[in-house]
């Protein structure tokens, strides 16, 4: 019974991954993003907890624990095949290792960029003397406003309205605390690789959110689209001295800008709250399944305990 309960979050994670694509294209990024982030976080927690319960049935193999009667009783009585429990333990350990790596890389990168911003006397905009066009949002420390780091190459590639779009876009990242959304989905995908497509969908949606609020700030979707196009073209034609502007082999990354431009040129997507609620419910289902796994695991131990006493 436990295995069935643990399978559920994994299957739901797959379903979430499959659904994330249509969700990205049909929903307004403002509703889709929080829904997907919540669902992904719940699914990652539920699947990891479920796998942990499976791995827990291995306790009877730990030599220095077998003197505890309850654990000795588990010997041979465990409903989980040893191979499954071994695999679950391996996935959990790998997941935790990947989680540590992801969190560390977030921390290190942010620290490096914050140090850079701290040395600047600017309130918000930190300009880099670099001909290659790039722009990033650097989140601030706790309760502190973040910074926008832009190269001089980017600023001179854009006209006035387009620069406003750029600033509004990065500001939207900072105000919306998109950095935390990014950390959450990275952590979730590290724990449960089945959620990787959903992670990519959320990262794309964060850009879309920022694009939409930039369009709102300058009052024109067309200008926002033009700014993106010009920045992307400038990035492509200039060779960076910093080797920052690298294209990933992922098709998603490559399609990124073009898809965002297409979305901005189309009318604003509708706020389908009902669909977003459905996505969150999907995440809640994984939590229920994890609850089911916990209950059946507790019942197993209770049964063993009663049998023993």
């Amino acid at each position, binding site marked *: 019974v436990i295995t069935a309960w643990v399978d559920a979050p994994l299957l739901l994670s797959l379903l979430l991954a499959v659904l994330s694509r249509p969700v990205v294209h049909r929903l307004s990024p403002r509703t889709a993003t929080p829904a997907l982030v919540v669902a992904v976080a719940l699914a990652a927690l539920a699947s990891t907890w479920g796998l942990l319960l499976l791995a827990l049935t291995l306790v009877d193999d730990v030599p220095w624990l077998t003197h505890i009667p309850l654990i000795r009783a588990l010997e041979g009585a465990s409903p989980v095949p040893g191979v499954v429990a071994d695999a679950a333990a391996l996935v959990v350990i790998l997941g935790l290792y990947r989680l540590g790596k992801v969190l560390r890389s977030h921390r290190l*990168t942010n620290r*490096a960029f914050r140090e850079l911003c701290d040395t600047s*006397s*600017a309130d918000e905009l930190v300009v880099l*003397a670099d001909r290659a066009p790039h722009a*990033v949002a650097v989140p601030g420390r706790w309760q502190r406003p973040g910074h926008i780091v832009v190269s001089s190459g980017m600023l*001179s590639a854009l006209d*006035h309205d387009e620069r406003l779009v750029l600033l509004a876009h990065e500001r939207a990242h900072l105000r919306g605390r998109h950095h935390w959304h990014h950390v959450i989905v990275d952590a979730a995908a590290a724990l449960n690789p089945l959620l990787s497509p959903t992670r990519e969908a959320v990262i794309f949606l964060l850009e879309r959110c920022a694009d939409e609020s930039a369009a709102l700030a300058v009052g024109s979707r067309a200008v926002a689209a033009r700014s*993106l*196009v010009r920045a992307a073209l400038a990035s492509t034609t200039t060779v960076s001295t910093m080797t920052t502007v690298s294209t990933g082999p992922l098709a998603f990354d490559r399609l990124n800008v073009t898809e965002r431009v297409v979305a901005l040129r189309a009318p604003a997507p509708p706020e389908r709250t009902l669909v977003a609620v459905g996505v969150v419910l999907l995440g809640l289902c994984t939590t229920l399944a994890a609850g089911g796994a916990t209950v059946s695991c507790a019942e197993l131990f209770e049964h063993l305990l009663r049998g023993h006493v």
Partner: protein
Amino acid sequence: MARRTTKTSAGRRAAGELESEVLSALWAAPAPLTPREVQSAVSGQLAYNTVHTILTRLTDKGLVARVPLTRGAGYRPTKDAAELAADQMRAALARGSDRDAVLQRFVTSLDPVDEAALRKLLGEEPR
């Protein structure tokens, strides 16, 4: 560092945002700009006095330098701070390995097919 004015009226932006806007306009310009030129390069609704105040504040911070022009004074961005920042960025990038996965970039570069499509698009857009 966050020096933000309270929003007194709709459409009035925080001081930090106006500073960013003026600073980015100065960086984008090929030559020093007079306060008047800055005023027209920035959204237009800014009062001359506001532009002047922002320029003075940026000068005090060492982000902008005042240069004498034939008529009046012009302002240009100071390169020192930006070059220092660029050096720090280079150092930071040399250390980190996974930064591409972590950073939220404005855009990524394009492959030739996308580039051609976007160029065509830009041609259609009225500037």
